[in-house]
Structures are given as structure tokens and as C-alpha cells.
């Protein structure tokens, strides 16, 4: 129960942050030249000033910045994200269409990075300064140093063009409409390269953290106690070291959920996935303020949700949290 109230308090504390972010993004976009109507007019191939004025009046863009902000926040309180002039649909619908791809990509990349980061970190720590460690650390550094977009493009060149093993982009094959399991497989196939591209970078970080914290924990007194009980090394690692070494990594996941959303913009663009990241990019170009603010709002909620889960997980892993002492 204490854990829940602790996490709940964290949740409440993030609301002001959320409002500040929204206001900040709103004002920042006012500084950018042009608005939705300019973008629409450009798409239509131009138009006269009266049409533009009428459109601005229709979308409420002729009001002062503060009145617009006030309107927006008031709508948000009623859980209304507004209407996207560009897509001609409510923002909530636009986002709902794009959300699954992003969430799928993030979950897949995060799980991949976490799982392999953990395993490789443990292997590297157990063979510290021997060849497995050197090999893993070198590859880790490579993935860490390589720009995500470049890695994505190279992966397309190798696996899609030369080898033709995997599709080069998209979320699913739109030429044939699969259903059920066949569709799931199709989506999975499309997501392999994006997941690797996004995940390898994070895996490199996690494996370094895991290696470091494993080495630290292996030197602690209770590991010596475990050995003095007559326990073999594998058991020592699994039963005493692993859980302790996981704590820093779990913290890191919470911190990096936001960064990962940012990284997905690049990956979604490279692999032309219909996700939130690409939607955000397009909204900026088209000055679609409502959609953009909606995305910021949803992303912030996503990050807060991830952190909430991480808090619960952390408390589950570490009994010292629950008593609050």
C-alpha cells in the first residue's frame, strides 16, 4: 500500500510538469513563422486574403495568443484534444491511429535492449578483462557510437535490398490484407529492422550499466558471505548479485522512456512507419498546432505511465523502499 501511495504522489507531482510542458510547446510554436492556414493555403495551391481570414476566424486563430492558450487548456480539461485542420479529423482519432505502431516499436525495442543488455552485461562482468568482455564492450561501443539513422539505412541496404530477407519499410503489407495470425507475423516481420535499429543503441547503454553495476555488486560483502556458504559462482550471480545489479538499470529505463520516444521519430522516418514520431514531424512542418500539442500530451502521459510502472517495479525489487526508511 505504501508503494502505491508513494507512486501516486509521484503521479500527482507530474501534473504541473505536464501543464508547463504544454504551455511551453504552445508558446514555442507561436514563435515559428506561419500557421495552419498558411500551410493549408500552400497545399491548396494558394488563395486570396479573404479566404485566409475566414479560415483563421473559423479555427480561432485570429484571437490573441493568450486567448488561444486559454481555449486550448480549457478544452484539455474536458479531455478534448481539439480538431486537426490538416487531417480533417479530431486529434484524438489521428493519434489513436498512429499510437499502436509507436507503442509496439517502443515495447519491442525496450524489451530487446533490456534483455540482451542484461545478458551481455552479465557475461561481460563475469569474464571481466578477458576476451568475452573485450568483444562485448567493443561491439557495445560501436552500437553506441553509430548514428541511428545511418544504422537503419545500412540495415535496409543489406537486409532488404541485397539479401531481400525483410521488408524495407511500412507497418504491414498493404497490397494484401491479412487477418489473424498471418497479419501478426507480417507486422512482426516489418518491425524487425526498426526494433534492432532503435534497440541496439539502448542495448549498448544497458549492457555498460549492467556490466558496471555487476562488477560493483560482485565486490560487496554479502557476495563474500554467499561464497563463504559454499555457493557456486552461477548461483551467487543468479540469487544474490542479479537483483541488486538490476536496480540502476531499472532506474535508467524510467529516465530513458522519453529519449526513446525522441529516437523513434528518426527510426519511424527511416522505415516510413505510421507512428507518433513521424506524425509529430509532419505536424511541425504543417503547423498543425492541435495535433502537435496532442502528441506532446500523449507522449508525456506515456512517459509518466512508464515511470509509474518503473516505480512499482523498483519497490517490488527493493524491499527497503516500502518502509520509507
Amino acid at each position, binding site marked *: 500500500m505504501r508503494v502505491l501511495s508513494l507512486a501516486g504522489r509521484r503521479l500527482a507531482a507530474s501534473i504541473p510538469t505536464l501543464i508547463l510542458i504544454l504551455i511551453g510547446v504552445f508558446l514555442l510554436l507561436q514563435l515559428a513563422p506561419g500557421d495552419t492556414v498558411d500551410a493549408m493555403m500552400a497545399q491548396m495551391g494558394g488563395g486570396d486574403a479573404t479566404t485566409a481570414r475566414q479560415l483563421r476566424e473559423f479555427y480561432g486563430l485570429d484571437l490573441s495568443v493568450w486567448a488561444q492558450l486559454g481555449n486550448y487548456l480549457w478544452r484539455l480539461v474536458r479531455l478534448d484534444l481539439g480538431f486537426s485542420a490538416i487531417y480533417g479529423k479530431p486529434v484524438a482519432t489521428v493519434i489513436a491511429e498512429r499510437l499502436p505502431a509507436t507503442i509496439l516499436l517502443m515495447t519491442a525495442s525496450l524489451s530487446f535492449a533490456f534483455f540482451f543488455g542484461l545478458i551481455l552485461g552479465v557475461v561481460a562482468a563475469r569474464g571481466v578483462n578477458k576476451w568475452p568482455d573485450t568483444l562485448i564492450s567493443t561491439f557495445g561501443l560501436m552500437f553506441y557510437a553509430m548514428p541511428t539513422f545511418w544504422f537503419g539505412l545500412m540495415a535496409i541496404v543489406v537486409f532488404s535490398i541485397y539479401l531481400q530477407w525483410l521488408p524495407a519499410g511500412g507497418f504491414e503489407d498493404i497490397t494484401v490484407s491479412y487477418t489473424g495470425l498471418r497479419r501478426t507475423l507480417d507486422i512482426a516481420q516489418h518491425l524487425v529492422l526498426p526494433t534492432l535499429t532503435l534497440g541496439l543503441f539502448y542495448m549498448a547503454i544497458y549492457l555498460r550499466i549492467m556490466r558496471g553495476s555487476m562488477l560493483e555488486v560482485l565486490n*560487496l*560483502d*554479502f557476495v*563474500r*558471505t*554467499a*561464497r*563463504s*556458504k*559454499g*555457493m*557456486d559462482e552461477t548461483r551467487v550471480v543468479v*540469487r*544474490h548479485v542479479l*537483483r*541488486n545489479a538490476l536496480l540502476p538499470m531499472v532506474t535508467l529505463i524510467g529516465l530513458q522512456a522519453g529519449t526513446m520516444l525522441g529516437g523513434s521519430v528518426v527510426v519511424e522516418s527511416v522505415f516510413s512507419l505510421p507512428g507518433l514520431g513521424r506524425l509529430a514531424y509532419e505536424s511541425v512542418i504543417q503547423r498543425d498546432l492541435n495535433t502537435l500539442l496532442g502528441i506532446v500530451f500523449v507522449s508525456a502521459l506515456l512517459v509518466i505511465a512508464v515511470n509509474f510502472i518503473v516505480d512499482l517495479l523498483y519497490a517490488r*525489487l*527493493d*524491499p*527497503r523502499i516500502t*518502509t*520509507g*526508511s
Partner: protein
Amino acid sequence: MSPILVLDDVSVKLPAGGDRSHAMEKVSLALAANEILCVVGESGSGKSMTANAIMRLLPGGVTIDGGRILFEGRDLCGLGEAEMRKVRGAGIAMIFQEPMTALNPLRSIGDQIGEMFELHTELSAAEIKARTLALLEEVRIPDPALAFKAYPHELSGGQRQRAMIAMALALDPKVLIADEPTTALDVTTQAQILKLIRDLQRRKGTAVLFITHDFGVVAEIADRVAVMSKGHVVEQGATQAVLGNPQHAYTRQLIAAVPPLKAPPPRALSSEPIMTIAHVSKTYRTGGFLGRGQRVTHAVKDVSLVLPKGATLGIVGESGSGKSTLARCLVRLIDPESGEIRLNGIDLAKLSREEMRSATRDIQMVFQDPFASLNPRRKAGEAVAQGLIVHGMARPEALARAKELFGLVGLDPASTERYPHEFSGGQRQRIGLARALALEPAVLVADEPVSALDVSVQAQVLKLLAELRERLGLSIVFITHDLRVAAQVCDLVAVMKSGEVVESGPIGAVFGEPQHAYTQALLASIPGREFGKGQRLAEEATA
């Protein structure tokens, strides 16, 4: 009786590039069943390495390069790793110094004790649980069922060490190695744990190898003693013989450095007080929301004390008694909530931050850990000169003054250019003293200044402190948990418990005829109370 564990000319090699080539050289020890052998020595003497060598749990790069370790006639050095694992825990078990860090913080006590059975027996889960509970009962943990489910941080230090002992004795090992098992504990808890180890050892006939740096503990518990210095066993024999009539010069020197519990004859004290502390209180509040469900800790509760000019006022107590909080209140590192602290008539508690900064000239503090309290990235001389510079002295002048101060505390003035890690523990504490003395304070607040030091180094630092007190006319507030040290350096003493002063007065009177029950309990808990007598015998023998 034939010995159960024999170390025959054992040498342990350190990695190249250390300050010496071997951690242990040709160490020979023998341990019989049903006896307690104390291995005593200062830090770096190789006593813990002995324990690790027997368990074959040496740090990386450290290897046994000679001799035999015979356990029940088998040479442990020749055993394979799998065979060795069967000996660890079941044949030879170990308990460690710091029970907080020696237990896995993320797993329950019952789970960790039960693991012993899981590893070495084929018992069922229910059987293991029953046995574990019985063990917890045996080491007299209050409420074993609750302790079984508890995590290490939920138990007190003494209870954790009891759990540790339960774990070590789970499989009735022939040999128990105890590596400084009571060093991290309060004196009353230490007395209980020592008694527990002694009782269990007698009942089960276990052979105990007890490693310690404390001669009081040796006098309390040992049947036989081995004294180690720089990797060699310099002397061994029956406890009475070694403590009463030490043969080796090093043993004599060590024993002479242990402060006797009896206070020296009182000095004449000035009737003029330099500092008066009246009704000082400090409370900590934790948790709770808008005052609900809050926990209030009275760290210091209505403390009133007087420090006469030129005197040393000792504040003694166990951990959590509020003595360190009081010390920090005196120099306003912590703001007391109420009460006054008058230094030369000025109430420090009422001063603003700005005024307090200039008042710090007159009152300075020395800290416990001489390593942690010096900035590792600054030269020692700069650390000492900093206070002077802050108080308006030009930099070159201040550095020159730092050199003088180094001379004053017995350090080489040229060493001001060195960094803290290049000094030994005792030297670092001297730097701490020089830093505190730089501003020529009238009052020095010393918070456990010698607790982290070896006994011989401790004696040197205490001697220096006494000299400086005479030469500079210092008045000292001396905080310590070590009653032996207090007996030697203090004129007056105040005993603190749960934030309150339960008894205070001249040291001879308080320690000679303690009035309060807690003071009596505290004094009765000191290991080897009778040891002081033996020591005087030793001094006479050397004279």
C-alpha cells in the same frame, strides 16, 4: 586434543607493486575443538587475510604460495573448487564485521539462512523453515517468526549479527571464523554478542578463530592468542600469558597503547566557563503529510552542560544517543531548535548565518573519518589554509601558516604539497587537527577523532591532542563511544542516552561510582574490564 585446523607455514602472495610482497609469511597456527583462538593485530597485519586464506576466498591476484592448511587432516590448498565449496559453510563457517553489508539487502533473513540447508542438505522446504526458526530461537532473536520474514534493514545491528551467527552455525560447522564480528556494534550489544558466541561455542564444542584488533575483546573471550604484525605471527600463547607477560616488543607496545579504563588523577580546572550549553534541543521529523503520521525523533533533548576554560568535556554514548547531533549543534552545522550555546558570553544559537561565519574562528570541529573529511582533489596544505583565506588572510601568508601548523601537529612542513591519499590514517587526522587549529579557536569540538585509527596511532593522536591543549590553552569537547579513550583524555564527562544527558560530572567520579543505571550498564559492558590490571603488570615488567 589434536588440533582440527592447522596452518603450517602458510604464505600468501600479494600482486606485484604493493607495499609488500606477501600478506602473510610463514604463518603457523593450530586450532583445537572447543577453544577460541584470537588473532589480534592492527590494520594491515594480515589477520583478515588469514581468514580469507583458510576459506580460500582471496581477492583477485592474491594467491597462497606456500604451506599447508590442514582441516581434519585434509590439505585445503590442494582441494578442487567443488570439494572446497562443500567445506565452506558446512565444515568451516564464517561471520563478518558489518552485518548490514554482509547480508543481502533484497532477501529476507529466513531465506538467507535457509540457503545454507538448501546448499548442503536434501531437506524439504518445510523442514528447512522449521530448522531456520529453531536457529533464530537459539541465537535469541526476539520474535523469531517475525525475524524470519524480515529484511536486513528492518533489524537492529545486534539482531543482524545474531542472524549472521545463526546462519554460520546452521550446519554445526567444526570451525567458526569470526572476522571482527563486534567491531561495528555498540558496546552493550557487543557484550551480548560476545556472550552469545561464547555460550554457543561451549555448548556445541565449536573451534572458533576470532579475529579482532581490540585487546579488551581478546581478554574477554580468548583461550589462546596469536599476535600478528606485517604478515607474521610474532607471538602466541595462552591469553593470560600473552596479555599478562608479553614477550615480543610489538605485543608490549600494542598492549601499552590500550588506554586503561581508570582515569588518571584529576587536573585542577578553571572555575571560569568558556562555553555553557543550556537547554539545547533538536528534533527530527520524518515522513507524514501535513503533520499526519509523522515520526518525531528527539535527537537532542534539553541538554545543559558547562565547559570550563582549558578543560576537556567528554560526551559518551552509543550510536543514536544524539552525541554527534549535539556536536554539530555546537558549531551550528545544525541549527538547534531551542536553548542557548554561550561561547565567551555570546549566544551562538542566536547568531545569524553571517555572524556565525565569523564566530567560527573561535570554535572549530575535528571529524571522525580522516579520509572522508578531506577533499581528495585538494592539496593538504590548501585544506588547512582555506579557513584562513576565507577569514581574510592573503593566500601566500595562509599557505606559510599552514606549513607552521603542519610542524605543530608533528607533520613534515614540506608535505603541504601532497594530496590526502598520500598520507596514512593517523597523518590525515593530524591534518584534520591542523585545519581546525588554523584559526586559533578557543574551543575544539572533536567528533570521534580517534575511532577510525589503530590503537597505537590512536595513542599518538591522543598524546598530541593533550600536548596541544596545554600549549595553546584549548578547551575541548570530545565526543566518543569508547569509554577507555574518554577515561584517558577527559576531565569531565556527560553520558548521553536517547538524546538526554543521564549523568555528568568529573570523569573519575562518573566512571568510579556511576549513579545512573545506564552508565553502570555501559561500564559493565566494556570487554575485558579487568584487562587494565594486567596491563599495569605488563608496564611494570617492561620498566
